[in-house]
């Protein structure tokens, strides 16, 4: 770029902001203002029927209130359980499937696409199908269990003990295709010579997996770990479609709590406060990512 006089620079400025106009408007109205407003609300009590002037600053009251609310503490706990199970399970199952499909099977494409099918399908429609298939009284799964001699099969999504597990199973089923796909793209990046030299050294398949594939694929694992963790802290559709947080508080999660407080109980302060708690969780994951991303990249 040559040295510019101020007139051309002004023209560049104008052009730049004109091209940005729609996205900047969207940013101001649907992002910047809502963030500030939500921040204010999280520290206030507001009877919104009485207009903006009735917003009263109440310090950390909302935060104290939600931590006393069993619905919130259950939501927080369930979110952590959900993240701590779905993420490692989908990543490890996904990696094993990806490696097998990549190297050791016929009908590669068919297998890959079938695993991807749940991911591409609408969560709501899939959830509806699952809740019918797992119908406690006449769903085919329980019919099968009964015919195998299980006298009292779980009531799945209607069962205090099983609901969260069933939701977790659904999520893994739904996400697995994405994990497999990203891993298969990552596996293409591992140079073949590494495998060949391991072959010459007579290393077994399991050895090769642990000493070549696993370390070489670790940047992809790291990426998936972060994305899946963030995704599971935000999970909403699955819960809303399958259980509405029930039975009791057994499957409620932070995102569902926010929705419930805001749009069922109209407690905008509590909803905003818990939204910021969710942000803090996600921000912590992002900080972890920033800290270790460099280390990870340097090692590989």
């Amino acid at each position, binding site marked *: 770029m040559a040295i510019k006089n101020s007139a051309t620079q002004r023209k560049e400025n104008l*052009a730049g902001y004109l091209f*940005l106009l729609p996205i900047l408007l969207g*940013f101001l109205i649907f992002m910047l203002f809502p*963030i500030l407003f939500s921040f204010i609300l999280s520290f206030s009590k507001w009877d919104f029927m009485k207009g903006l002037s009735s917003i009263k600053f109440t310090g950390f009251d909302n935060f104290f209130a939600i931590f006393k609310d069993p619905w919130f503490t259950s939501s927080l706990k369930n979110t952590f359980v959900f993240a701590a199970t779905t993420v490692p399970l989908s990543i490890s199952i996904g990696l094993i499937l990806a490696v097998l499909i990549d190297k050791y099977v016929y009908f590669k494409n068919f297998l890959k696409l079938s695993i991807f*099918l749940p991911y591409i399908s609408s969560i709501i429609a899939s959830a509806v*199908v699952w809740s019918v298939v797992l119908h406690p009284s006449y769903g085919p799964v329980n019919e099968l269990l009964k015919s195998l001699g299980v006298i009292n099969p779980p009531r799945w999504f209607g069962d205090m003990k099983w609901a969260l597990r069933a939701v977790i199973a659904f999520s893994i089923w739904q996400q697995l295709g994405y994990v497999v796909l990203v891993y298969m793209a990552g596996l293409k990046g591992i140079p073949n010579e590494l495998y060949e030299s391991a072959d010459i050294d007579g290393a077994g398949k399991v050895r090769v997996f642990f000493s070549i594939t696993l370390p070489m694929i670790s940047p992809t694992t790291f990426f998936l770990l972060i994305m899946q963790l963030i995704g599971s802290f935000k999970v*909403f559709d699955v819960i*809303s*479609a399958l259980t509405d947080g029930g039975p009791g508080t057994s499957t409620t999660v932070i995102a569902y709590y926010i929705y419930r407080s805001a749009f069922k109980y109209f407690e905008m302060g509590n909803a905003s406060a818990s939204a910021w708690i969710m942000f803090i969780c996600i921000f912590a994951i992002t900080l972890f990512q920033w800290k270790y991303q460099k280390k990870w990249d340097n090692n590989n």
Partner: protein
Amino acid sequence: MKTMGLGHKITKMSLTALLLIIVITMIAPFIWMISASMKYEADVFTFPIQWIPKRFHLIENYSEVWMGKYNLLLYYWNSIKITVISTILQVAFSAMAGYAFAKINFKFKNLVFTSLVATLMIPDQVTLVPKFFIARWMGLYDTHTFIILILSFSVYGMFLMRQYMVTIPDALLESAKIDGANHLRIFAAIMLPMSKPIIATLAILKFVWTWNDYQDSLVFLKSRELFTLQLGIKQFATQSGAIYSLIMAAAVCAIVPLIIIFITGQKYILEGMTAGAIKG
């Protein structure tokens, strides 16, 4: 690997068999769904499962879902309307912004870009409550317009476009600039045609996301006649006296467009979804 021994072949075949079993179990709910959607209601839950119905109630079920009491046609139309308009708008806005960040040197460019990208960390839930009030203040609560507006703005789309456009060499634009072309000309005549692959990727991903969007329609729509397909399906499933064969037919209709789009746009979808991963 070229000279595969018999042992290898047997391992490969047994692993294939194992994976086929796993995968078929995974897609069994869908097969069950398709099968149930073609059955008489009375036959839906017969056990052992009749994967291929003994008697068919296919046309009756589907016409009931589309034209009869479930009114799927309306929900379908609502979803298509919202999805198509917001996809076009989002791709256009993202391409414009992507061009500005990639090829125009304006003041505070880095600051604006960083602030936009930083908001990727903010979960939707933070802005959900304020957006609800914005909708009400604008008089747009319970309208498609509001959903389309919020779904047309995407930092992620802008980011994807910018990352691609940055790789298009400046030299290609310089000659056009010397010929006196302004930014609008360069954008329309050079950048857009050259960015076709990323436009296709974003458009398809965005289409799928919007088609599947549930939370926004749940929060911002109230009237039944404005419901999107996802809300409609959820409604069918939860209302009392659910008719399962019809619910399954509706689910088939919700999933089929996604599968068609996926099969036709496979290449772009896979590229878009793995783009971030490979860069690491």
